[in-house]
Each structure stands twice: as structure tokens, then as C-alpha cells.
């Protein structure tokens, strides 16, 4: 399975807008939303039927039995996450607890236990041979990187013989992004021509580079700041990163999304540009497999 991951560094540059259009254009049979703490792809791409749902258990949470607790304070002293609160009784702040188990280890009277905790929900939409894997992190939970790995695992298990998978990623460069990068063949970065957009682009390219994953860039709303667009192009040229297209600012694109449609479902300049982005991105993905076939 070839995996194409859409990332951006900066939020709101158009990841989901482009990802949904590419899914439509490629008629992809497998796709996923790895932005587990603010997922949106399902708003455009969800199947008509209800998804299969299952609870996701993250790391366990500590619990203190007040009947056994002797208030020796060792758990509070040892906790690096400031998750033990000394009130009338000793309590665990479940938001702060990372489930490391240090409190359990130091407690001399076995008053502390680790208990399983639901940290989110995994959803699998299947419809006409298509598989769509997504999840929602529970409000107030951590461990988003682990849930991202589960979303990808669920996709792989459900879509064994699919050639292409398109994955919508999350903003930033931290654990959810790093988890989404594993096993990916090409990262398409949606860049925005602004001072912030350029700075964030450089940081996500560095991050993908750390894991030696091939990247390409698409500049969205390129006509809102042509000088910054030129700077992004220069940066990509210097770093030998292909620019696969420019999408114009297009009020019709917002309308399409607000109506639950992709931007290639109607005729609009942004949709036209995205078709070209799709063709070049696919070339890059296939070129890669050609090269590896030659190497074999």
C-alpha cells in the first residue's frame, strides 16, 4: 500500500480541503483522518452508513484508595507530572496523570493502583469497498500519538489489498504528526504564503527530514501574497523539494466545504488547480515505486 500523508505545520492552510479533493480524484479505497484531537475529514467524506465504533484505551490512570492511604506523601513527592493532589485525602488529577506507575511503585501500603481509562473512540466507516478510518480523542485526554497509530493500524488491517491510502494529518510537528509519519511514502505539505506559513513550513520539512520521508509542497491561496509565494518557491528550490502546484484563493471553495462537498465536486478555480496538484503528486508517488522497482 502506498501511503500519501497530507500535513502543513501551520493549522488552517487547507489540509482537509485538499485531502478530501485528492480522495475524490483518486477514487481512493482507503483513507484516514489522523487529526484525532480536531478531526474534520468525516464532515466531507463520511459514508452514509454508521461507522463501526470501539473504545480506545490509552495509558492507565492511577487511583488512590483512601482507606489504605497513610498520607506518607511519597507518591506526591515522586510524581513528575504533579498529578497527585493533597486535599483532605490524597487524590489523582486524571488530566495530569500520564499513567507511568511511579506512585504505585513507591506506595508502601499498596494504596495506589493503575486502572484502564478510555481515552477516545475509533471509528471505521466501510462502504462500497471503501474504508475510512478515523478517531476522536476524548476531551481532556492525552496520548494523541498512540491514538494516531491506532487509526493507521485500523486502516491497514481493514484495507489489506488497497494500492493507495490517503491520510489527512494534524497541524504542528509533535507526537501526533510523528506518529502519522510512520510508513508513509510521500508527505504533501500544504503551505500558506505568509510569514507564519513560511516559518511553519520550514519546521515541518525539518521534522519530515528527521525521519527521512520524501516531501512535496503545494501552495494554497498563493495569490493572496505573491511575494511570500515566491519566497516559498525559493526555499523549496534551495532544499530540492518539488512544488506540485498552486491553488488560488477561491470563495467557492469555502462554499463547497460548508455544503459538505469537496472542491472538485463543483467547477471552481481552486478545484481545477487541485486536479493538477493531484496529477503531479501521483507522478511523484509512482516515480518512487518505479525507482524502488528498478533497485530490486
Amino acid at each position, binding site marked *: 500500500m502506498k501511503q500519501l500523508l497530507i500535513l*502543513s*505545520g*501551520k*493549522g*488552517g*492552510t487547507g489540509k*482537509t480541503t485538499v485531502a478530501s479533493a485528492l480522495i475524490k480524484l483518486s477514487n481512493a479505497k482507503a483513507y484516514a483522518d489522523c*487529526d*484525532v*484531537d*480536531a478531526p*474534520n475529514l468525516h*464532515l466531507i467524506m463520511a459514508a452514509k452508513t454508521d461507522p463501526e465504533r470501539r473504545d480506545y484505551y490509552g*495509558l*492507565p490512570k492511577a487511583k488512590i484508595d483512601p482507606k489504605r492511604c497513610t498520607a506518607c506523601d511519597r507518591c506526591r513527592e*515522586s510524581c*513528575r*507530572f504533579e498529578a497527585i493532589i493533597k486535599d483532605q485525602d490524597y487524590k489523582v488529577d486524571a*488530566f495530569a496523570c*500520564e*499513567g*507511568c*506507575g*511511579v506512585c504505585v*511503585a513507591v506506595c508502601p501500603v499498596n494504596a495506589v493502583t*493503575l486502572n484502564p481509562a478510555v481515552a477516545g473512540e475509533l471509528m471505521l466507516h466501510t462502504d462500497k469497498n471503501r474504508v475510512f478510518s478515523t478517531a476522536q*480523542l476524548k*476531551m*481532556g*485526554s*492525552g496520548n*494523541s*500519538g498512540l491514538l494516531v497509530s491506532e487509526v493507521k493500524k485500523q486502516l491497514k488491517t481493514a484495507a489489506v489489498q488497497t494500492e493507495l491510502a490517503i491520510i489527512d494529518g*494534524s*497541524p*504542528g*510537528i*509533535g507526537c*501526533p504528526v*510523528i506518529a502519522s509519519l510512520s510508513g508513509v511514502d510521500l508527505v504533501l505539505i500544504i503551505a*500558506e*504564503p*505568509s*510569514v*507564519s*506559513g513560511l*516559518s*511553519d513550513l520550514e*519546521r515541518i520539512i525539518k*521534522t519530515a*527530514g*528527521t*525521519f527521512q520521508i520524501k516531501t512535496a509542497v503545494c501552495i494554497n491561496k498563493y495569490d*493572496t*501574497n505573491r*511575494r*511570500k509565494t515566491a519566497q516559498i518557491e525559493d526555499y523549496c528550490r534551495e532544499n530540492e523539494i518539488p512544488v506540485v502546484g498552486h491553488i488560488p484563493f477561491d470563495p467557492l471553495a469555502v462554499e463547497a*466545504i*460548508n455544503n*459538505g462537498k469537496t472542491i472538485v465536486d463543483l467547477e471552481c478555480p481552486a478545484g481545477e488547480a487541485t486536479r493538477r496538484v493531484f496529477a503531479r503528486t501521483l507522478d511523484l508517488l509512482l516515480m518512487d515505486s518505479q525507482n524502488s522497482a528498478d533497485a530490486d
Partner: protein
Amino acid sequence: MRVAVLSGKGGTGKTLVAVNLAAVAPTPALYIDCDVEEPNGHLFFKPENVRKTEIGIKIPVVHGDKCTGCRQCVDFCQFNALAYIKDHPLVFEEICHSCGGCVLICPGSALTEKEKVIGEVQMGRSGRVTVKTGILNPGEASGIPIIKQLLTACPAEAGHLTFIDCPPGSACPVMESIKEADYCLLVAEPTLFGVHNLKMVYELVKLFNKPFGAILNKCLDKANPAEEFCIDQGIPILDRIPFDQELGRLNGDGLIAARESEHYQEFFAALLATVLKEAGGAP
């Protein structure tokens, strides 16, 4: 008074609002950029006299000569950051949460800790605004220790206004950023995605019992799904920022609208007054 600016969805205008509010503050203000994965506020403030402090976390080191191969550390680690390979425990630094458990549990004192730098905090001045920025090094998984450092080293001084620019999403980095806030400002944009993510941060601020209000950004003359959501849920709408290409241009070029244009100076000063009134009194 500490005001956190958050949005769920990225790119709705968190940094725009946080930076401009700090820029129009009548008293010395503090701007803290907690979006340590992609910090941008400093690109607007261009602070001077910047002091940099490295931020490190503690990572275990194995001393092979003392290791008896009991594997208790490997069994203890909930994060699978230790593995026993070729008669030797191996540390996977990227997934270590620095809980210190393995060091604590090792019966032979074969584990100690070393400091590993994961990023830095920069502090400088821009006019009357003190600018604090957390920057996570690319390739590092968690910026939480940097966010903690950003927020602990700045007690809320009486009469001072602090603006906390939060990361997107609603997961742990956002929770950490709003923990100490007195008021949460939700920035929403009029799109289907914007509303869906607004709903998440709305639930988050309720869960944390924070007082909050919304600012609607990029408003057009058309129906605004974010506005409808706020009205339905009874979320106070503090102000509306109209969609404006000039504002987009200033922002895209890294300029602070309130410092460049009289119109936006007045606009954000009025917004700040509304926020302070809503948040309960004087700065």
C-alpha cells in the same frame, strides 16, 4: 489577569488576536506563545534583547557494568521506552516520558539520568510588550515541558495583562496552556470545520470550568455557522472581525495591524476593553 486565546481549528486567527490585544494593552503586557510546535507570535513582535534558555528533560542512561539483566526497568516502563536487546536494556529517548520510574525501580543502581535538550524559551521586548516564546526542536515529540516552563516562570502580577497564545487542537498541549488562565477567548471562523472544532474547545473550557467568550473572525455578509452555534449554546460573542484583505496582507507580511493602522488600533483597543469587562474587571 491571564487571557488564553484558543480555537481548536488551526489558522482561525489565534495569533492575530493574541498579538494585537497585547500590542494595544495600556499597561505593560506579557505575550506568551504556547504553540511551541509552530510558534509565530515572535515573527510579528520581532522582540529585541532576546535571552534564550535551553529546556531539557531527564532521560535514563544505562550503566552496563552495573546491570544484572533483571529487566525490572523494561517491565516497569508503561511507555515501552526501554527494551532488552542483546543482554542490555536499550533506551528509546523519543518515547520516554521522563517519569523517572526505571531509575527508581532498578535494584542495582545501573540507571541514572542525563539532561536532554528538547527546545528553548526565548524572552525579549517589543515596545511595552514582553514576548516569551517556546520553541520545540523538530523531531521531538512533546512540547509539554516547554509549555510548563513558559507558564510557571511568570506569576500573574497585579495590574499586568498576560495573553497566552495556545496551540491548535484540544489535546494535552492545549490543556496545559489554559490551566492557569483566568479567561479563555475562543476564536472561531465561519466554516463547517471551524464550527466543529469550536465545539470541541467549547467543551474543553467547560470541562476546566473557565469563563469564556468568542470572537468571530473572517466574517462575511453570508450566514455564519459559527455565530449560529454561539447563539444556540449561549456563548457570549465579544466581537466580530470582518474579512478584510488589508488585514490579511498586514498579517501575511508579519506586521501587527494595531501598530500599522489607526483603524485596527481602535478596533483592538475596543475589543480589549470588552474582553476585560467580560472577564471580570480591571487588568
